[in-house]
């Protein structure tokens, strides 16, 4: 753990890390981009999940929702990852000291695996190609898992400053 923290402090002290942390405008602006990217990417994923569960947009075929929203979800994620990377660069040690941060990362990994399995396996099944009035159980499960996992990512992300230390 101390080795990781030492590395994190080194990352913070690199010229770019220090420049972001010390700039009056850079840090808040990057935080703003992170939030908007999140609203577009994870927000549209929430909408997709609600469709998979069968709660909303039942008149729109599932494949339409998946295909048409994909470029915007990915664009949002680009903004989230770049801004998130820059934020980490500027305060790696502070963020790592919070137990909320590793939990957030673990849930991102789970949510990513769930999305990959859905895209590569479930979405390609024959019973997923129709209008989607009745969706297979696997699709509902993947949608519910996505909803829960991404919510946990948001919750732990927001908790980072509120749970500053492990003890």
């Amino acid at each position, binding site marked *: 753990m101390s080795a990781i923290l030492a590395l994190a402090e080194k990352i913070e002290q690199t010229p770019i890390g220090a420049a972001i942390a010390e700039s009056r405008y850079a840090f808040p602006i990057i935080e703003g981009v992170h939030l*908007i990217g999140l609203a*577009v990417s994870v*927000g549209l994923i929430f909408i997709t999940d609600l469709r998979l569960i069968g709660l909303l947009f039942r008149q729109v075929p599932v494949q339409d929702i998946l295909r048409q929203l994909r470029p915007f979800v990915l664009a949002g994620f680009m903004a989230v990852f770049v801004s998130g990377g820059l934020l980490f660069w500027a305060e790696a040690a502070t963020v790592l000291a919070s137990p909320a941060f590793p939990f957030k990362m673990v849930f991102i990994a789970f949510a990513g695996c769930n999305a990959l399995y859905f895209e590569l396996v479930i979405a390609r099944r024959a019973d997923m190609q129709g209008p989607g009035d009745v969706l297979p159980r696997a699709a509902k499960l993947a949608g519910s898992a996505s909803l829960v996992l991404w919510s946990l990512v948001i919750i732990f992300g927001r908790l980072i400053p509120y749970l500053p230390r492990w003890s």
Partner: protein
Amino acid sequence: MSSADSILTQLQTSALGHAISKSHHLVGAGLQIVHVVAFMLLLASLVLISLRLLGLAFRHQPLQHVARDATRLIWLGLALTIISGSLMFIASPKLYFHNSAFALKMLLLLAAVFVQLTLVRKVAHSTMPHAVFTRASVSIALLLWFGVAFAGRIIGFI
């Protein structure tokens, strides 16, 4: 003391304001989480309708198939953000009232709601909306909503 300040003091010392501000700090964090998640639902639904109006997605779907449920999510998101936001405001009204990013956020919010309910609604209700008018109204509304998010995120840094 100005009348605004006396109202703010009354809010802060009200039973509800007192209850929230004196509660565990994770109650405040919980309110923020509700605020963020509800805002994401609101913004994503607005993006969804905007993409349809701009012709960037769901071009072959009737507008109603997309708009009806998206509108429900928008109202749900708006209601939850306003409730959680008001509770946060009541807990420390002076902190927010004198914060320039908060003032900007409220102005942008009013402008966004106004443009959404006038220009964008007009686009959505007309059968053959003018292309330039559509693009302009939808883009202005979206930019204003993004501005609300931006200003909101910056409140804590001022």
